[in-house]
């Protein structure tokens, strides 16, 4: 029997420690993401801890009713700490048959379905692949189903505003949101405010949407809903005291880069090229011209990284961002930054691949690319963020490493982290240690090859400084003078020092900690990046029932923390869950000669807690 059994009893939901997973699903034009984000805000204000998972198709507007055009937004919230967007669904809201057929498999037995029967037309049913109407043929008997003629009710509720049929129907997401808000006792006032702001120039549209929201809410309140459906009351979560806001990983990363620039006392030049799912970083930073950030949308990925490198040469910190395929294009230039030892931050918001792959889905399959994906012995630090709010700290760390060690730094995020949101304990920048950049200004004894003896960092002398005129470039340089050199021994020495500098960073980063469980024992689950949430929950559940298992999550992937090897050797078994075919596990095996086991998933979806629990149980079962 599984250690963790989850049911969807309303009674269970009402018990202490309760959590609920709700998914809104509809056509990509149905406004599901907007519905989800409004529900998220209301839930955060209600005091629940939460995590979200927007899952949308690559097509901007797929044909109405098509299964490949289904857009979904999932939220997991509860009274306990929440670190994943949840496994199976308690509530599934579907706006059409395609949304039902593509999402039903994730609904728990006995879970609640809310469906718009007006959208279950013969045409839509056929398009989704249904031979008969599931709302009528008894195939949903294992679930609790609320069937409402949502479209008709919406049209009636917005009739006073005189909207065209097209605009009236578009209000149905707000009507549905009103109903779900009643179900979970959420406050509608923030959504009302959001709608007034969003449609400030179209007050009739704003008022129609608000009317739809209220109408859905009062429908739920007065309608005779099927038995067992009543207001879910999820107790407030016990979280660390302080001021919170919701943030996606992309938001937190953008703010982290700004913060890093302030701590380094240096302006940021952010050069990027649009690519899903990385573009939101460019959008956010472009909105913050009030800080020392200049954004540049380049003509291509190569130009973006090159402009960032030019900016670093010019005396600001160049930052570029992309997703896997774009990082491939940037490869040659990243090696130039490495050879010329200029600071540079490269953000990779990973997506499913190879090639165009699954642009809107998540994966962590660019670790090998980050570590090894360039010509020659180009070595550079690689760090990864593990949660949306962790993106803030990791971005600051990337800026610190780049500026203190005169090197390009690769920061790995992914599509899930970029789009997922969670309550974020708002940081106080005055509590962070500053690491101001020291530009060289003294011509006495100056050579562009001068190094800091401790960090091996190359001197940074920016154009505009009198007396420090110098040349750098991609050709190998003399160790002492920086002049071009084809000398055999010198190339060995330069290769060695570039490697020693990066390896030496291990002395300037925190030791690896164990996030849960003992620091030696039977089994350690070792992860990196966005698998943090499901691994954390799985380990927590198993530890609660007495299983000896620890969780180690690695932020510094190159170089590893100095104590990592010794720490890992303290466990009898190591299991490495990754959303790739096994990239970190190979590195750990080759680097530390340990028999680490793998757990891999590349479906474009994050791990479910259950999948990790099952893997741990099966591993422990085998060894028992």
């Amino acid at each position, binding site marked *: 029997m599984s250690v963790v059994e989850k049911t969807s009893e309303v009674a269970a939901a009402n018990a202490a420690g309760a959590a609920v997973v709700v998914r809104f699903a509809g056509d990509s034009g149905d406004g599901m993401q907007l519905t989800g984000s409004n529900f998220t805000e209301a839930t955060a*204000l209600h005091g629940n801890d939460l995590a979200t998972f927007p899952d949308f198709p690559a097509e901007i507007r797929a044909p109405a009713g098509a299964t490949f055009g289904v857009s979904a937004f999932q939220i997991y919230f509860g009274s306990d700490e929440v670190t994943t967007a949840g496994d199976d669904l308690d509530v599934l809201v579907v706006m059409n048959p395609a949304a039902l057929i593509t999402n039903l498999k994730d609904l728990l037995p006995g879970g609640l379905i809310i469906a718009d029967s007006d959208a279950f037309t013969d045409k839509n049913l056929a398009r989704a692949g249904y031979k008969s109407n599931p709302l009528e043929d008894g195939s949903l008997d294992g679930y609790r189903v609320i069937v409402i003629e949502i479209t008709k009710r919406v049209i009636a509720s917005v009739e006073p505003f005189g909207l065209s049929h097209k605009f009236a129907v578009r209000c149905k997401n707000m009507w549905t949101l009103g109903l779900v808000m009643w179900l979970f006792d959420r406050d509608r006032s*923030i959504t009302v405010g959001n709608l007034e702001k969003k449609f400030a120039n179209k007050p009739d549209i704003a008022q129609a949407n608000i009317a739809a929201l209220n109408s859905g809410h009062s429908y739920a309140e007065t309608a005779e809903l099927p038995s067992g459906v009543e207001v879910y009351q999820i107790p407030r979560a016990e979280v660390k005291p*302080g001021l919170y*806001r919701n943030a996606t990983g992309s938001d937190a990363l953008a703010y982290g880069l700004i913060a890093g620039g302030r701590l380094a006392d240096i302006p940021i*030049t952010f050069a990027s090229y649009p690519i899903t799912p990385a573009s939101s970083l460019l959008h956010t930073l472009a909105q913050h011209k*009030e800080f020392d950030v200049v954004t540049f949308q380049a003509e291509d990925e190569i130009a973006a990284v090159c402009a960032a490198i030019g900016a670093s040469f010019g005396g*600001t910190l160049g930052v570029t961002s992309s997703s896997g395929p774009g990082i491939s294009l940037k490869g040659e230039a990243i090696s130039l930054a490495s050879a*010329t030892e200029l600071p540079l931050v490269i953000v990779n918001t990973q997506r499913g691949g190879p090639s165009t792959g699954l642009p809107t889905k998540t994966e962590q399959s660019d670790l090998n690319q980050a570590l090894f994906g360039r010509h020659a012995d180009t070595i550079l630090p690689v760090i990864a963020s593990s949660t949306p709010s962790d993106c803030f700290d990791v971005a600051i760390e990337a800026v610190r490493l780049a500026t203190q060690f005169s090197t390009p730094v690769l920061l790995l995020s992914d599509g899930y982290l970029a789009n997922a949101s969670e309550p974020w304990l708002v940081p106080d920048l005055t509590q962070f240690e500053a690491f101001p950049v020291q530009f060289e200004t003294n011509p006495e004894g100056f050579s562009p090859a001068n190094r800091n003896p401790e960090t091996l960092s190359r001197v940074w002398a920016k154009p505009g400084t009198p007396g420090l005129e110098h040349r750098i470039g*991609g050709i190998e340089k003399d160790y002492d003078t920086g002049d071009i050199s084809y000398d055999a021994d010198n190339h060995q020495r330069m290769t060695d020092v570039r490697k020693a500098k990066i390896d030496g960073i291990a002395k300037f980063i925190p030791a690896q900690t164990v996030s849960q469980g003992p620091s030696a024992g039977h089994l350690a689950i070792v992860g990196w990046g966005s698998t943090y949430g499901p691994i954390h929950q799985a380990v927590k559940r198993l530890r609660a029932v007495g299983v000896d298992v620890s969780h180690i999550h690695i932020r510094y992937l190159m170089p590893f923390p100095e104590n990592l090897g010794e720490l890992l050797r303290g466990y009898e078994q190591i299991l490495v869950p990754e959303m790739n075919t096994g990239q970190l596990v190979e590195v750990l095996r080759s680097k530390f000669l340990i028999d680490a086991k793998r757990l891999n998933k590349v479906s474009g979806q994050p791990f479910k807690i259950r999948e990790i629990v099952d893997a741990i149980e099966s591993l422990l079962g085998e060894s028992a």
Partner: protein
Amino acid sequence: MNAPVKLTLKDFSTDQEVRWCPGCGDYAILKTIQKLMPELDTPKENTVFVSGIGCSSRFPYYMETYGFHTIHGRAPAIATGVKLSNPELDVWVVTGDGDGLSIGGNHMLHVLRRNVDLQILLFNNEIYGLTKGQYSPTSQVGTRSPSTPDGSVDLPLRPCTFALGAGARFVARTIDTEAKHMTPVLKRAHAHKGASFVEIYQNCPVYNDGIFDYIKDKKSAADSRLVLAHGEPMLFGVDNQKGLRLNTATLQLEVVTLGEADVTVDDIMVHDETNLVLAQMLAALSTPDFPEAVGVLYCKQEVSYESSVYEQIKTVRAKKGVVDFNEVLRRGHTWTVS
């Protein structure tokens, strides 16, 4: 403050051994530019030379300024970053026909379109020198090279035509060994705020020797070059006996001779460097049917990219005022957990 010391050519020469082949046109260009630098009144420390890859791209190593020898084709993008990071810098891009128009063609297109304030010097020798003589995107049809032993078959690109097509606001052409012509052209390019594109005909004595002799040799030069001067009639040839006239029936330039068929100097078209259509016609002229235009083909002052970017930033900052980072993080919907 001390009175500025007058700098000379020597102040702009580095201690590095120049490694071009003997007789390379690059030597002459280097000397002309080193000599020009002291006349530009730009502090040496504010001058930056950025290059890509190729023979011409070794240039920054020989200039006692800030310099960055980068990767193949990307100098315009790197220079854009340099200029964005510090608009006070005086940034020069040195590139060649392969670097700037083949592997780096896209960056060249966009840097010109954006009008980033740079001087872009494209040394055109119609060949790949550093990789030992393959044909380039500007090689004439029929060029025999290691990669085209039976002659190249594809149409060459005309750099000035490309630049004008990309929206360049300053386009000029000059010749490697002619310092007297090059110096004023480069001064104009430097004075122009925005992307200044200068094609320099450059001889490669090893792989493509003599391809520009028709325009350089004293005997043929007069008939094969049209020295442009804004506001002056476009005359050329021995004793300026020939000129270019606009044929209003074909909308094309034609060569006419003064005194023949009642042609007078009044029939000759006057060069107007602000006329884009004329510039495009001039860029396309080629021997033997026409003289090739040297000098400033086109010049139109418009706001440069980086000035617009910083102007926007200034406007936003004036509107938002001094902003505290912590305060920005606390805007919008927040809640307190006690």
